[in-house]
């Protein structure tokens, strides 16, 4: 009954959509440009700049290669603690004075560590820019690494280590990592022993080893011109040694898929996580992958998985899938949550949808819709300066060319049905995927 109604209703709905089809086409051809400029500071440091003086605000992002994946196995977590500690006092300011000073300036500056790199973010009103850049310089070059905040951060991490024991997302990711690349550093986790072993000397060693000019990438957006941006770059970064790129861990070798993994956790709803081999973002299939993934389970309410698992069967509140890339492993990962009694059915429907996708491919209409969405919605990611900074810096760190932001939609528009179907055959075979369930699912026969 519903299928019939749907077909009928679709016909009725067509005029609304068609009325806008022509405009859609026109709009697609307009490019909404963002002017990204490459500057080189007097001290010889390169940065990408989007200068827009209508806004009395400046945002700066910086990135260095080398993160927690290359830290000593005896001091796991030291890199993240080190970057946290850069926000716990610098120069003349102890931790409390530092935080009060940031509030007085209505600014923020902070550092963070990922598996593969370190990041810095700064935001300030342009009227306070001078003071803000000085705070950034202090934080980068003169962190105090005082004992009291280090002990506090360790206390906080210890509580986190205990709480994660019943965190379904943590448990599911740990199970997946251990199934797919158990011997790679990406499968490593912090431990009580490791955290206890972190020393101030260890943090200083990481600080010296990782912060240099060799892999530094800087993006600046907002109320600052090229000359002032160059001066700011020199002020904050010029004291860094040239250094060299950090060592890289080996690429992860991906284990073959395992039978279903179940982790018991007493809760009414189970978390399902699944993952299979993916591709790196420099792969020629990266853009077609974005289109293919949108059709199966990306973003919105219109994907095949959302339609089948949520809309048609009411099994989940949400389900999604998408590429997940680190420097040394690439995956396609998906997740869903459903009542323990429905896990078997949700798994079956998800696998069946993936199989249908894999075996039959996408349709031209789906590809067209995906391209319209992915190109049309890009402007929504660029309607504020903070969003522009995120997008531009992301491309810079990924090694894209400086005009990529204005070419990206053309690349998506060039994707054909054949491209999409090639990617589907390459990456969406459900038999290549490992599934993990955390909860108390009913009617499953765990193999482990």
């Amino acid at each position: 009954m519903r299928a019939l109604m749907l077909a009928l209703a679709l016909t009725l709905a067509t005029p609304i959509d068609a009325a806008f089809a022509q405009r859609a086409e026109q709009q697609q051809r307009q490019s909404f440009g963002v002017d990204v400029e490459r500057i080189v500071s007097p001290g010889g440091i390169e940065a990408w700049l989007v200068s827009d003086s209508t806004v009395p605000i400046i945002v700066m992002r910086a990135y260095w290669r080398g993160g927690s994946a290359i830290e000593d196995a005896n001091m796991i977590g030291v890199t993240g603690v080190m970057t946290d500690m850069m926000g716990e006092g610098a120069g003349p300011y102890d931790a409390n004075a530092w935080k009060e000073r940031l509030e007085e300036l209505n600014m923020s500056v902070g550092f963070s560590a990922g598996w593969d790199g370190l990041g810095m973010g700064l935001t300030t009103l342009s009227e306070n820019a001078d003071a803000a850049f000085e705070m950034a310089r202090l934080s980068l070059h003169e962190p105090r690494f005082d004992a009291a905040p280090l002990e506090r951060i360790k206390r906080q991490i210890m509580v986190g280590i205990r709480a994660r024991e019943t965190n379904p997302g943590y448990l599911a990711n740990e199970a997946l990592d251990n199934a797919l690349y158990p011997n790679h550093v990406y499968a490593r986790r912090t431990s009580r022993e490791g955290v206890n072993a972190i020393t101030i000397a260890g943090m200083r060693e990481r600080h010296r080893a990782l912060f240099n000019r060799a892999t530094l990438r800087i993006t600046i957006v907002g109320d600052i011109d090229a000359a002032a941006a160059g001066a700011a770059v020199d002020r904050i970064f010029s004291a860094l040694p040239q250094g060299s790129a950090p060592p890289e861990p080996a690429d992860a070798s991906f284990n073959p898929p395992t039978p279903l993994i179940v982790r018991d956790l007493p809760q009414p709803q189970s978390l399902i996580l699944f993952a299979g081999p993916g591709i790196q973002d420099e792969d020629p299939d990266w853009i077609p992958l974005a289109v293919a993934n949108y059709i199966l389970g990306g973003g919105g309410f219109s994907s095949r998985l959302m339609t089948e698992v949520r809309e048609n069967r009411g099994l989940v509140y949400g389900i999604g899938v998408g590429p997940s890339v680190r420097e040394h492993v690439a995956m396609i990962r998906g997740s869903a949550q459903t009542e323990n009694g429905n896990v078997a059915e949700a798994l079956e429907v998800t696998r069946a949808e993936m199989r249908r996708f894999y075996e039959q491919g996408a349709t031209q209409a789906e590809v067209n819709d995906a391209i319209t969405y992915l190109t049309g919605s890009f402007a929504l990611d660029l309607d504020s300066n903070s969003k522009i900074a995120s997008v531009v810096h992301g491309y810079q760190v990924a090694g894209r060319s400086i005009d990529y932001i204005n070419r990206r939609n053309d690349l998506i528009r060039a994707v054909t049905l054949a491209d999409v179907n090639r990617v589907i055959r390459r990456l969406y075979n459900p038999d290549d995927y490992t599934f993990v369930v955390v909860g108390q699912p009913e009617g499953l026969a765990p193999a482990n």
Partner: protein
Amino acid sequence: MKNDVSILRVLQSALLQVARFVLRPAPKAGVALVLALALFTGADAQELPRPETFTLSNGMQVVVITDRRAPVVTHMVWYRVGSADEARGHSGIAHFFEHLMFKGTREIPPGEYSRIVARNGGDDNAFTSWDYTAYHVRIARDRLELIMRMEADRMRNLRYTDETFLSERDVIVEERRQRIDNSPGAVLGERMRAMLWPHHPYGTPIIGWLHEIQSLDRASAQAFYETWYAPNNAILVIAGDITAEELRPLAQRYYGRLRPTRDLPERTWVSDPPNVGPMRVTHRDEKVRQPSLSRIYRAISYGTDEGRQAHALDVAIDILGGGETSRLYRALVEDQRIAVSAGAGANTSGLGGGSVSVYATPAEGVTLEQVEAAVDAVIAAYLRDGPTDAELARSKSSLAAAAVYSRDSQESLANMYGASLAQGESIDDIVNWGNDIQAVTRDEAITMARQTLDINASVTGWLLPPEEAQ
């Protein structure tokens, strides 16, 4: 895993904190909000942009916030109805309706609304609170008319089958499990609210109690819709690449023709009996590895206060517990080292009143008794001595600056104006918010702190593992 957040269709307990931050730029929110903008150069930096407004003949209010930086718009319709307006025994129906609004009309088949938006490069979603229900689309400026046509259509012409109704009810039950039942902390929070508001509808969860969601029926859903979803109960907020002059004919064409609800009911909510003293609740769950303390107090809100009371309360609570320079964090985490987190927050946005929450997570080996005693001591000293001048200045400056930072995002501004208007405030209230914050005096802050942090108007919750596991 980026999908999990973007597909949420409701703001519920924890997420309401986020909504408040959008509404009332939070202390220290600059880190998250990142950038401001100077569209209105020359205006007082503390002031938010003043939107253009007009009202259609059927009573629908229209608010336009122009931001020409990108060729996109944020289109929101806010209904002055939320879960606090539900009939007793029908909890969850306001939020259920938020889902049903995507289930089609005579023109638009089930699920097609979102597909059409996506096919035009837009993003859509919706959310529900105790006070309002809102539907939003972000899309290229040249598709705005399409959105207005579809949004106006579903305000009065919703149609869905029994099967759709029942399937969506299952989705909502899964949503409840995901948000509440899987999380011992959320379960405790739900019970604490029920104790703080034993009779007032703010004590009922937005998403509804499980047994009542499972028995929601079509007839009462339909009655709810026909009463409340009407142009004279709605506010249209559009931010982005458009002016009021450009919008007016479109608003008239699509929304101006809709029939208003005659005799729209008054939103009168029952009130609670007087406080009978401090209330306490302990919740134990196998999943709890880390005990924690939370407390909520009854408070005034921007919807119920006089003068600058809510502003003063925001400042007072920010000093007590906002961020790592606050009294609670300094005392418990830095100085005494008995907690790994501690803080407080004021939820002052409600149409029918607000609340203040205080929380602390003990360090390993520290009991909840110890932590609670330390929290009580900090609060007692604060109420006795009040804030220092330096604390007051820093807090006011941070709060006001966060308002400036929020101007970077057309979406934030649309949220802020829509929610505030739906919660009983005026455009002037919102525009002047930063200046009013700066005007808060030390006496006003102390007075509001003393009036609000009354243990006799509070519920204290302990979250613990099962007894045998301790």
